[in-house]
């Protein structure tokens, strides 16, 4: 009986020994303590995040325009007439909900990267759903953000079943502490959520190289659909990734933060969005507990350094 239990469940003391951060502890000791409530809008509203990022010299996908009211939706065609591809996002969305990527379009049809063809009416519908708050955090009225599609670097092409993987970096008190990338699979339905069956690849915070790859809690070496070798991933421009992450601290003032960063073929690493309540799956992807690392930062890492100095510190310690 006990053996059977211990096969499926860990004891609290085992988790503590492994330095695993639990949801309650994350909320009470880190989010409530280091993330001031009044700063949340800076990251929850993508328009504000973008403006702020610009001020701090962080590249983000170019903003094409915003749609705030239903009647503005008809302006969409005008807004996007110059470019081929664009993305519609809810300003207050999270976890990729309500993100519509359009690869190409003509007068009446819109094509997504997977080849699905949408009519103008369907896109209009999507915007209207976004405005009425279907994808926003609290279900309140929202703004649709239209931005330029990232010209994804082809380095990751083989690693994901659909979509382009981004790099998630956890930043604690300004120090990038843990990183991972999430790769969609057929099993996850093209989504990048680990609990739905996406692959989580833990990345070494000093080098951006694969630490470990996990799918459905099991270690794997190759992507189940593309068969790409997951042990050899090395994210290029890693220092630049870390610098964006470190700057996000000065930019928002949030002490416990998640940054989603993508690699653009021309412009290098770009910040997609920030998250004031980053999930704990990064621990599973890395096979390491967060508590240990956070404790180390509290105890030994010097305070009051510039972002560049912090990145240098992380790279050398």
């Amino acid at each position, binding site marked *: 009986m006990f053996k059977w239990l211990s096969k499926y469940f860990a004891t609290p003391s085992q988790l503590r020994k492994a330095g695993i951060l639990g949801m309650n502890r994350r909320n009470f000791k880190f989010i409530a303590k280091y993330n001031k409530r009044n700063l949340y809008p800076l990251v929850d509203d993508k328009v504000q995040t973008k403006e702020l990022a610009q001020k701090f010299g962080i590249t983000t996908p170019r903003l094409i325009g915003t749609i705030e009211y239903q009647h503005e939706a008809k302006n969409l065609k005008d807004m996007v007439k110059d470019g081929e591809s664009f993305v519609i996002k809810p300003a207050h969305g999270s976890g990729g*909900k309500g993100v519509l990527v359009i690869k190409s379009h003509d007068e009446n049809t819109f094509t997504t990267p997977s080849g699905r063809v949408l009519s103008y009416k369907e896109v209009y*519908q999507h915007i209207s759903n976004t405005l009425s708050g279907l994808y926003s955090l609290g279900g309140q009225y929202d703004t649709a953000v239209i931005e330029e599609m990232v010209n994804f670097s082809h380095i990751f092409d083989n690693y994901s079943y659909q979509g382009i993987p981004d790099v998630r970096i956890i930043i604690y008190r300004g120090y990038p502490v843990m990183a991972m990338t999430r790769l969609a699979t057929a099993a996850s339905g093209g989504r990048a959520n680990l609990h739905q069956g996406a692959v989580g690849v833990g990345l070494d915070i000093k080098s951006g190289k694969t630490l470990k790859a996990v799918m459905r*809690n099991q270690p794997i070496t190759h992507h189940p659909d593309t068969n790409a070798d997951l042990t050899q991933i090395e994210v290029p421009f890693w220092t630049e990734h870390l610098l964006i992450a470190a700057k996000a601290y000065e930019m928002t003032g949030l002490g416990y933060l998640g940054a989603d960063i993508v690699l653009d073929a021309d412009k290098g690493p770009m910040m997609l969005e920030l998250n004031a309540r980053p999930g704990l799956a990064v621990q599973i992807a890395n096979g390491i507990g967060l508590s240990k690392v956070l404790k180390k930062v509290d105890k030994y890492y010097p305070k009051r350094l510039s972002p560049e100095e912090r990145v240098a510190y992380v790279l050398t310690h």
Partner: protein
Amino acid sequence: MLERLKSFVTIRFVLTLCLIASCLFAGYKIYYKVKYWGFSFAPHERTDIWTIEADVNFTANGEPIKISLAKPQSSNEYKILDEDIVAPGYKTKIDKDRVILSTAAREGEQNVYYRILLFDNQDAKGKTAAPAPQAPEKPIYSEQEKAIAEEILSLASKQSGDLPQQLIRLFNQVPPEPTVTAFLPMKKTTKNVAENISKLLAYKGIASRMARGIKLEEEKTAFSPDLMLEAYLNGRWKLYDLTTGKIGLPKDFIIIQRGGTSLLDIAGGEDSSIKFSVLKSVTNTFNLAGKRAKLSNEQQAYDHSIYNLPVNQQSAIKWLMVFPLAILVIAVVRNFVGLKTMGTFTPMLIAMALVKTGLGAGLLCFVIIMGLGLLIRALFSKLNLLLVPRISAVVVCVILIIQYMTEISYRFDSDIGTAASFFPIIIMAWVIERASITWEEEGAFNACREIIYSLIAALATYVIICNETIRYIMFAFNELNIVLLFLIMMLGTYTGYRLTELKRFRPLVK
């Protein structure tokens, strides 16, 4: 120094202090309510009230009249709620165990009534110790009587039970022993049996006394009190039934007079008789509490409590008082167990509906509404409606489903349909909406899992709030809600792992 003090006074520390303080406060209030208001821990909604009426009848003989009537005292089993005397022109005085009436000289037939209201003191605990009686005086028997007494005692020893029981059984033997017949007067009455047994007990050095009491039965009129015998054995008074020899106070029995004093003494009157009648009535325990509060001089506190409100308001508050417990369950399910439910308090609202509908009918109803609702919502999603009109349409559909369920079930004489109308319509519509979005975005498996987790949370809440005793306790001792408040706040500082995390992070442990 200040720094050290500051690190000591953490939120958790303050909350612990508050929790302890609220426990003490609730403990005191519970003690107070039990002691002065007579609240109990079991949900006795109703309490029996017995009205005993003594009708004293006599012919006045022209001298000043003084009537002394034995009356029941508050005992462990019964408490006196109210007593009154109907005796026009008499001066009345109520002592601890007697009622004294007096008036100037009168003539003719007299009738006085004494009425007492008693209620079941169901929550009484412990018994008051009676002082030990003095050793009884030995009866003076002639040589011959002494011989017979000895013989009776030896005959009695063949009977079962203790000595008083043996004697009672011997005296009631059919056919009677010749020795017993010889010992008793010609006419055998309960009274002279009692007197003789008492004498024999005194002969053996056992103190005894007579007790008169009334068996409380509904609608009992014009009867005399029953006679019983009490003997002091092994340091306590024991009550014996004079015909069966059974020990102890019979059920629903109240002693109105004890010992040597008479039931009724009348000076200035003749041909007196006393007849009792008993009437049973039922009252709400909380109504009674007011009277009890008055008896213990705690009236004012009671007047300002929720129990003094009109019944309608009381039942509304009674329903409210169980919410904090349900909320605690939800907080535990989410923060300690770690189940993801649809909406924070949706499971609680479902549980409340289940309490009103009954479990089986409620669950069936929930499944039907959810099933049909999801089906309709799936059709709607093809129409690409805007959010607010779409959710509104789902609300209307839920209302229609409930309407048809009620109609159909009425036709088939089942109560499932009526159960449907208790479900919170708007909440159901949102649950359908959310489930259908989860369905579209994360698949049927995740949607069903979320619904099932919500139902588990609802059932956990249901189990607690459907319990009549728990609901009663949360109402009668509503201070417990303050304790719950701090418990919930303490849970807000819980930083340990959730149960689901023990499974989630299992792979990280070698």
